[in-house]
């Protein structure tokens, strides 16, 4: 079923911040905020939890390291030992550079893959912009409609509008997004 949102557009980074703070102060839940560039205070203001993506990076790097060491050992020691310049089959020191490179490679690719999966970004995905120009110069705040908490705190729709206007929203409207 289509979801309805109350969208408030701002021109200023700060008024958006104010709006977020006030709205949450009023006990409302901010669905999301849209901006042309990342605003760091928003993280605190919206109370976003710390990301777990670093764990993905850790996993990636470790896997790269192990694959590299293991493969080189398998190839030059187990599968096809050769007398190369009289050096021992297991020339561990010589295996380090490649181990290092693969660590980085796997780490990087797996982290980015994790990001795309987590944020559901994929080629050809059709964007749903709740406000025009948020990739240009518009800051937008979106609230779910109807908001159960709003109902609970006996806030009327009109009150929410007033609050947002008070925070300097240039434009407020309701919009539906496809499911």
């Amino acid at each position: 079923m289509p979801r309805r949102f109350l969208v408030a557009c701002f021109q200023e980074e700060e008024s958006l911040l104010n709006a977020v703070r006030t709205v949450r102060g009023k006990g409302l839940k901010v669905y999301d905020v849209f901006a042309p560039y990342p605003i760091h205070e928003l993280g605190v203001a919206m109370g976003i939890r710390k990301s777990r993506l670093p764990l993905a990076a850790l996993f990636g790097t470790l896997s790269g390291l192990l694959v590299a060491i293991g493969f080189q050992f398998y190839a030059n020691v187990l599968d096809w030992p050769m007398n190369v310049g009289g050096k021992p089959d297991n020339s561990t020191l010589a295996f380090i550079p490649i181990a290092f490179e693969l660590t980085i490679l796997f780490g990087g690719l797996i982290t980015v893959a994790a990001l795309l999966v987590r944020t559901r970004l994929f080629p050809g995905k059709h964007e749903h912009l709740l406000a025009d120009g948020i990739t240009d110069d518009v800051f937008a705040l979106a609230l779910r409609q109807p908001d159960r908490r709003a109902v609970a705190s006996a806030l009327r729709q009109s009150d929410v509008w007033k609050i947002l206007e008070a925070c300097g929203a240039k434009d407020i409207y309701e919009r539906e997004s496809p499911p």
Partner: protein
Amino acid sequence: MKDHTQCGETPTYGKSLEASRDLSADPFVILSNQPAEATRRDFLSLMGFTLAAASLTGCSRGLAQKAIPLAASSDRLIPGVPNWYATTCAGCSAGCSLLVKTCDGRPVKIEGNADSPLFGGGTCAVGQATVLSLYDDERLRGPLWQGSDTTWEEIDRRVMDGLSAARAKRQKIVLLSGTLVSPSMRNIVGQWARHPDFRHIVYDPISMSALRNAHLKSFGRALVPHYRFDHARLIIGLEADFLGTWLSPVDFARQYAITRNPENASYLSHHIQFESGLSITGANADLRIPVVPSMLGSVAVALLRRVAARIGMRDFPPGPDPLPHEMALDAVGDKLWKHRGESLVVSGVQDVSVQVVIAALNAFLGNIGKTINLSRPSLQRMGDDREMEQLVGDMNRGEIGALILCGVNPAYDYAEADRFLEGLEKVPLSVSFSDRRDETSSHVHAICPDHHFLEAWGDAEPVDSCFSLAQPTISPMFETRAAQENLLRWLGQSGNYYTYLREFWRNNMFLRQSAIQNFDDYWDQTLRTGVTELPSQMSGHSTEFHGPWREAAQTIIESSAPLTPSSNEINDRYELHLYESVGLRDGRHANNPWLQELPDPITRLTWGNAAAISPGLAKKLDLQSGDIVVLKTEHAKLEIPVFIQPGQEARTLSIPLGYGRKQVGTAGTKVGVNAYPLARIVDGVRRYSAKNVAIEKTGKHEALAATQSHFSIEGRPIVREMTVAQLVPTAAAAETQGEAASSLWPARPEGDHSWGMVIDLNSCTGCSACVIACQAENNVPVVGKREVIRNREMHWIRIDRYYSGSEENLRSVQQPMMCQHCGRAPCETVCPVLATTHSSDGLNQQVYNRCVGTRYCLNNCPYKVRRFNWHEYSQNPEYDYTMESPMGRMVLNPEVTVRSRGVMEKCSMCVQRIQSAKTAALQAQRSVRDGDIQTACQQACPTQAIVFGDLKDLNSRASRLRRNQRYYHVLEGLGTLPNVGYLAKVRNPLTT
């Protein structure tokens, strides 16, 4: 016999015994049971084989099956298993005894015959290369009359008509040949000589007639003595490159090495060389004194004067000593006297008086019969320049009715070639046995191409009563006919030369021996061993010296006025010295790409010749190597590039002969400059030197194709030298057990063998036979002048030349350099695709199929012995040398891959020989014995300077040499632990 069993079953060339039995029935059976007419078909099928071999990078066995041309197979021809045949080399007149390896019917490799008492298994570069001449595309496919193809019947008819016509007109019939070392051939010529109007004239482009005449005057017989360097403790050479080109270099080098072995220092000879241009002989001498050619005679006189004084001859013609060598000459004189009876003075100077003085010197010193053998003379260089001079005159006067040219090319190498050609025009019938259209044969009426000696029967007697036989190793590839057979037929005799030869031996050699009663056995026996030595028949000749030495000395003293550096006349007048180059010799092999690309052991030039000048002269005239100058003598002028040569006598220009062929073939035509016109006949002998030479600069420059550009050793301990004094007596010499290899790494599991090599720098003369041997064995491509100039020659073994010391007292050393097969090989570590790794038996092996050609190994090789295929050198029209034409590819060794473009290659220590020897040992259920394996370079070396062996076997020759006090590794400090090592060069200074 073990020397020749590289390819499997022990004594392989025992086979040639059976072979020869059949041969007695039909000389053409080796290749095929079909009659001789079938030769062309065989040739085609072989062609098919080599095409395949070159394209499918040769696993010989797989291909060999379809290569065998035998319909009904023979038990003697096992695909892929080579047969060996003993024969005799015709590369020059020295007549070395050879063993020829034939694979699937094709001769592919020439090796020396160790059973030969004269040559003991050694060969020279030219001998090694002759196998390629067999497959020369320029060879005529059949007889020519007036330049167009014809049949032998036609030829016979016309020639015999011409001969009878000449006889009718009472005109002379002349056979003009090079020195005939073949006794049977001499016999045939003897039969011709029964006709009164027949004359046999011997013409040697490199003549020794002065020596012969001197002996005529001194001992009553015109001969070239047989020298015994191995009996000499003091060797003095005057312009005689006896280690490189003079008379019989392989024999002499072998003898020389015997006297130069520092391990028995008590019998270590001194060697002093007086010469103008630096030769490899001079490079090996303990003392080398540069002398301008015109002064060599006075050096001889000065020595004679000192010796004469010792034996109390007061009436010695007075005269000044050639300055500034007085001190040296006194010392040499004393030495000579000390070693009388065991000294040897040789000279290549073409001047009768000088040779008389030399003969006197040897006679007074009592060397006759000790180091100089007159009762068993050498039968080479029988030419007499005066006769040739007469002949040319007679020809021009139209007195010659018929001229038969056998193995000579006067239109190229005679001083007055034009006069010869004019005369040739006037001869009603001229016949040449040349195998190609060359400067001379293209002007004769009939060309009757002779076999290549590998296709032919024959015999040789290089030294009196030292015989060797020659047998075909392949049936004639073309419609050629043996020269001897022609001469027989034109005498009206039937039957082929083979039967004649056999009968000749039955009636002569066989009767002179008593060991074997049955002639068939004797024949087979001789054919198998290839050589036989019989008691001499030349007894009763006087060896008493009665030469006109006073007169000779007098003439020399008068002719050479004392020259002081101050006198102005010498300042702008120079002298000329013409010499045979080690590669091309007299020039008859000019179309052999291997020899053209063989770096001269001294100048290291390829593909052309240049006039060597001393650095001082170059500075004085402001000349660089490659600048072209014009040389003017009284008779001729020559335009030639110069080459700055350390050790060159200050006022002399040395020019190698044998270059500048006008008509010889794609490879050799118009390479270098022909210097023969400068070698004039002066009072009856041909002079290879000239006085009063003027030099004019032309301002032109030509790039010289040198394989080495920097000759100073930069004070690096690459070549180690020591004097006898520094040698510890062998008994006391602590046998060190190699180097204690301290290593960070755990030892690797090793195989049963560790193949290694020890090269004795003291024995190595630099003759370069190993280079060609390696090229032939390992299918090393020829890349041509342009690529050599770009420093891309492919030789797996090269002979580095270094100079040290001052210009006056120049030290020159040579060092054979090939892959050192390092135990800690820098090249292996860096190859990204594991294309070069280490085998369990100590070889650094190159995997052509895996190589992608990053050239990292080449960069990281401290010895720079790796060779990269910058282009496709086989089957590429741009490199039409040996691997392009189907003919040329027949010489390819089926046991060795032909490398493709973009692949690295290098010395493999003849791994194919190692493998087949291992297989043989396995079949015989024994382990490989020391000496079973000989690498190509080792086998070719006349002085046995290269020793290959198993380093695991502590008693192998190689292992024992590695414990020698002179043993060292090149660039030891890098810790590459090479399996190839060197023995330091030992000089034996005069002062000891």
